[in-house]
């Protein structure tokens, strides 16, 4: 490679690298500095080094662990539900989707709606007096649960998240399903294979890599959830729907505990980083 060429390559990469350094690199340094310092909104320009104090504060806070546990549970349960439902829908509706493409468009509408708007819409739909869901439950069964009360709020946010993002899993599985060669199915049909057996023995094994990818993506998205829960119930009754993202937001803007919020954010970053590396090693191990 000539020196002229490497300069040229540097110039081609330059805009993106500079942009990343400015918008993410600098804030990352900032968050490390402030994460290890005594900080308040008044002393923003003069951080005092305080070692691991913020991390001790964050990890000593029971709400932090409650939020971490909520995010973990929420991410795992919604990922499993979405992928299960999405897989079933994709395999079952594949012939319909092949013949009538517009049906796919209808099913992916929820993904195009902002999660924050979806949360607000659920507030309307589930409202005691103005919401159609309690209205119909009352008129049909004479009874309606308190969807956002302490007993049900977890189930409610899980269902809301699942209904909005099952389309994503559906879309991934539909594409994977349609890329399975049709002759394979025809050959199986000639051999007299029943559809159920075809799914378990041929289609599902071929779609397994997509299953892992979908589970992973949906888990990550559920784990970091903020928008829809925040607009639907906020931190929830007794803080019961405080996800880790909501915890960081509230400690920072509501309670002004900058150091603690940053420490929690750094811990979250480290967790996400580890999860990501492990997942990628696993996925790479599968793909030859």
């Amino acid at each position, binding site marked *: 490679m000539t020196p002229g060429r490497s300069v040229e390559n540097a110039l081609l*990469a330059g805009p993106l690298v500079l942009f990343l350094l400015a918008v993410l690199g600098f804030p990352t340094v900032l968050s490390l500095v402030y994460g290890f310092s005594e900080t308040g909104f008044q002393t923003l320009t003069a951080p005092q080094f305080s070692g691991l104090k913020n991390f001790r504060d964050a990890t000593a806070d029971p709400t932090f662990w409650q939020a971490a546990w909520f995010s973990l549970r929420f991410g795992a349960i919604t990922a499993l539900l979405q992928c299960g439902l999405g897989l079933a829908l994709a395999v079952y509706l594949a012939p319909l989707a092949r013949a009538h493409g517009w049906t796919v468009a209808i099913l992916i509408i929820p993904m195009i709606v902002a999660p924050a708007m979806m949360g*607000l819409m659920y507030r309307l739909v589930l409202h005691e007096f103005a919401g159609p869901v309690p209205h*119909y439950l009352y008129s049909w069964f004479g009874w309606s649960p308190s969807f956002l009360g302490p007993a049900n709020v977890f189930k409610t946010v899980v269902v809301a998240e699942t*209904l909005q993002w099952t389309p994503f899993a559906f879309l991934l599985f539909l594409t994977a399903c349609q890329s399975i060669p049709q002759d394979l199915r025809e050959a199986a049909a000639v051999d007299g294979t029943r559809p159920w057996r075809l799914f378990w023995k041929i289609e599902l094994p071929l779609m397994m890599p997509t299953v892992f990818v979908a589970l992973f*993506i949906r888990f990550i998205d559920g784990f970091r959830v903020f928008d829809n829960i925040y607009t639907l119930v906020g931190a929830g009754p007794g803080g019961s729907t405080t996800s880790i993202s909501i915890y960081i937001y509230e400690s*920072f*803007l509501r309670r002004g505990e900058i150091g603690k919020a940053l420490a929690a954010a750094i811990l*979250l970053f480290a967790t996400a980083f580890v999860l990501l590396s492990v997942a990628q090693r696993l996925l790479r191990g599968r793909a030859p």
Partner: protein
Amino acid sequence: MKPRLTLRWIVFAIAAFAMNFPVLATLITAFKPPGEVSRNPSLWIKAPTLENFATVLTVSDRLNVYHYLWNSSVAALIGALLPMIVAFPLAWAMVRRGTGRGVLFPLVVNLRALPLIIFAIPLYMMYSVIGLLDTRLGLGLILAVVNLPLALLMLVNAVAEIPAEIEEAAYMDGARVPRLLIKVVLPLCRPALITTFVFGFITAWNEFLFGLILTTRDAVPMTVGASFFFATSGGGVQWGTAAAVMVVAALPPLVLGLVMYRRISGSMVAGAVKG
């Protein structure tokens, strides 16, 4: 064969109804007169009206929907275009010369999987020092970061599909790299550029967290502005108005997304599988 197909239609209808229910109910509520909502929460409108939309589109001293729409448009434009501009030259260098394949590519692509909140606090502090807090540019910049991974991924895929011979012919004619990129590569990437733009615009428009943290008044985007309608006027939420503002807020991405749904769904799948 026939009854089985009918059953598929039924399953489709149930799934479509359940997943789109909040959108449907909101759309219906938006056309109910203000007095009707609490008396008749069903999915049937007795006296359809445009009154709620008129209320939403009227500027009050606290709420200005045009302002939110304008803020969202500007911020989403920056958020969609900027990542394409910075990623395009690198995407070409990555494919043709392997520049940044080892470190830069995985670094950028993995940004997607990080919880965004971790950048929100340091950005808030940085913005408050350099005066980007509560500006459309400041919001647009971070939206550009959100869109960068997919933009890079899709442009790399697009460049990789261009036959190298086409570029070599241009080289022979003595074209330099910048000219080659603009005159030859850019036009050939047009479909991917359009998809990247539309997808990025929708993502940026729908973003909420950064709008909530980084703006307060001057640059409030539509998603955050819509939530203001829920906290207004002491006497509880005006559901008709609230429904109408949600329709207004959700309409631009919905129209874009439905017109281009094939491209959108294709890029979602590509982004997930290739990452």
